[in-house]
């Protein structure tokens, strides 16, 4: 198994695990904050709606002594109710109001007034009677789950609600979870790939280059520049290997020079030499018979100096005591 595969396999679970842990933690923090954020959003919207629209209209009537003029009050209440549609609410969110007796007044969405009364009537009565405990929270009734905020506007005896479906909150939580999982998977894959590419570029590739260079050196060939210029340990190794290759090349060149020099200085005869059994001439490559001394002289560095051996002296110059053995 190649080293890059080993590193990849080792890193992948680590990265995946880290991201999953981080993702799980984020999901936990986010989903637990959704309820709180939703309520805060509802309270903010509701406060603004009451202050700006409902109370604003009422104050205008009071300032102009019109708060007892039924036509004006009804018209301004109608305008205040219609202005609830101007707010950007959550998808399943709606602003509605019931009077202090729990009777339906208006709703920003088309709903069945009786359903609103049956679901929220008791809450409206409690809030109108001064209960602050029910000003915000969750409602579980008649297969309905809702999160809500409420305010009581005493001058008009309106209990104004901003409610949103609990399913919508859960859907939001689920969508955050799904998104977190997708992000974790994507992040893990991306991180792993990134690490893999980094390791490949800065570790595996240089090692492969060094390996190739070493093979080339082993085959006795030149390697040139290994092309690793990093200032790390691998870079140092590469530069040392280049120096080593150059030294080997240098020694080899010197060896060749010496060899040639030796070859030039020492000529040796080798192989099978055909020689006449009688006259001792030697046949050369061209088929000519040569005196043995001229043949050797021609094919080696040896030189001949002629003399007479003892046996030949006795044979050919028996009268001459060339070796002086007569004295004995």
């Amino acid at each position, binding site marked *: 198994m190649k080293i890059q595969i080993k590193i990849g396999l080792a890193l992948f679970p680590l990265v995946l695990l880290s991201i999953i842990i981080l993702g799980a933690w984020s999901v936990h923090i986010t989903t637990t904050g959704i309820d709180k954020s939703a309520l805060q959003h509802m309270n903010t919207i509701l406060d603004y709606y009451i202050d700006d629209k409902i109370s604003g209209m009422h104050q*205008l009537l009071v300032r102009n002594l019109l708060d007892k003029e039924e036509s004006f009050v009804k018209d301004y209440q109608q305008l205040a109710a219609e202005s609830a549609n101007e707010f950007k609410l959550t998808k399943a969110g709606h602003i509605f109001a019931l009077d202090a007796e729990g009777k339906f007044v208006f709703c920003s969405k088309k709903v069945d007034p009786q359903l609103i009364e049956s679901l929220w009537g008791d809450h409206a009565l409690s809030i109108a009677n001064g209960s602050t405990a029910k000003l915000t929270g969750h409602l579980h009734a008649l297969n309905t789950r809702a999160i809500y905020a409420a305010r009581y506007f005493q001058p008009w005896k309106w209990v104004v609600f901003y409610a949103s479906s609990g399913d919508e909150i859960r859907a939001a939580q689920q969508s955050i979870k799904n998104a977190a999982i997708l992000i974790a998977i994507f992040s893990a894959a991306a991180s792993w790939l990134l690490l893999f590419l980094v390791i490949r570029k800065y570790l595996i590739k240089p090692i492969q280059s060094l390996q190739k260079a070493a093979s080339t050196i082993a085959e006795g060939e030149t390697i040139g520049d290994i092309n690793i210029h990093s200032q790390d340990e691998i870079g140092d190794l590469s530069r040392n290997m280049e120096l080593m290759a150059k030294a080997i090349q240098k020694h080899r060149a010197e060896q060749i020079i010496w060899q040639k020099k030796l070859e030039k200085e020492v000529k040796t005869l080798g192989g099978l030499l055909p020689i006449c059994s009688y006259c001792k001439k030697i046949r050369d490559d061209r088929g000519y018979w040569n005196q043995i001394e001229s043949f050797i002289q021609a094919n080696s560095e040896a030189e001949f100096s002629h003399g007479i051996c003892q046996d030949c002296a006795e044979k050919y110059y028996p009268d001459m005591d060339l070796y002086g053995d007569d004295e004995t």
Partner: protein
Amino acid sequence: MKLKSMQTMPLQLFLITLIIGLTSLAVASDVKKVILIETMPVPAVIEHSRWFQVQLKELGYEKNKNLKLTILKANGERQLAEKLLNAELAGGNPDLVVTIATLASQAAAKLLKGTDIPLLFFQVSNPVDAGLVKQINAPTGTNITGKVYTVNRNAKIEMLFQLVSQIAVHRPIRFGIIHSTYPSSMGDIRELEMIAKRRGDITFVPYKIEYKKVPTGLPAMIEDTKKGIKALEGKVDFWVEPLGPLGESFEYTQAIMELSTTPIVLGAKADSVKRGALMHVTPHIEASGRETALLASQILEGKDPGTILVTPPLNFDLGINITTALKLKMIIPPDMLKLAGNHVYR
């Protein structure tokens, strides 16, 4: 020794006299000579004149110190305005002539044409029709500039329509308007009729009477107005007061209220609404007077009036009579009620 000093005394006296004379001349040149011409003694003109002078004082121009302010009263007569101004010009050129309302402005423009004496007009509802300038919201390039005294008529009519359309069932809604031949009144009617024609849901039923100089001619014009009321009664759904001196007078409002059962829905002044007209939308007199004084100050400091844009006032007043609205079973929309602010009357 004594004799010698006696001999040099005339020279010393001459030098002292020369220094005093030059100093007086320098002081005199710092005193700005301004002529203010009021067209007629109607409340809007009087108030405009007052706030103009208040602002000038706040800007540091004090009468008999650095300001010689001459106020001419034309009593509603253009010829008188010309005569009075001519007499003043004979005594030397002023640094600035300021005119309030159309007739005085027209008179001054005629006399100052071709001179380099700056003319600053205000409380002129239609200076283009009056021949003072060629266009609004543009510099004149002449020695004349000023402030337009009108509120955007389209906006005004739209606000009025929001109210009257609540109770008037048929279309077009008919507005009776008895007006004089005073230039700004004629211009106003022309503009209103153009708007009515474009909209199609309203129409103006005018009744024209001859303009007579105010204040002396006002009773005669009110008599003519009464004839107009009788002539239009039953033929109109509501009354609208015209711009100009006739609409400005409280006698006009009183005459309609006494002789007609048809309500006045658009007054030409705050006083009409206080007396029972449904609403008025008019330029803010104090702001208009002060803005004009600021322009006057700039001109006195050397600014070329020809480079100053002729613009409508920046502020306006909306007044509403709630009692009338309730009587007519109208609901004043909250936006309008907010805009009216403290000008909501009962």
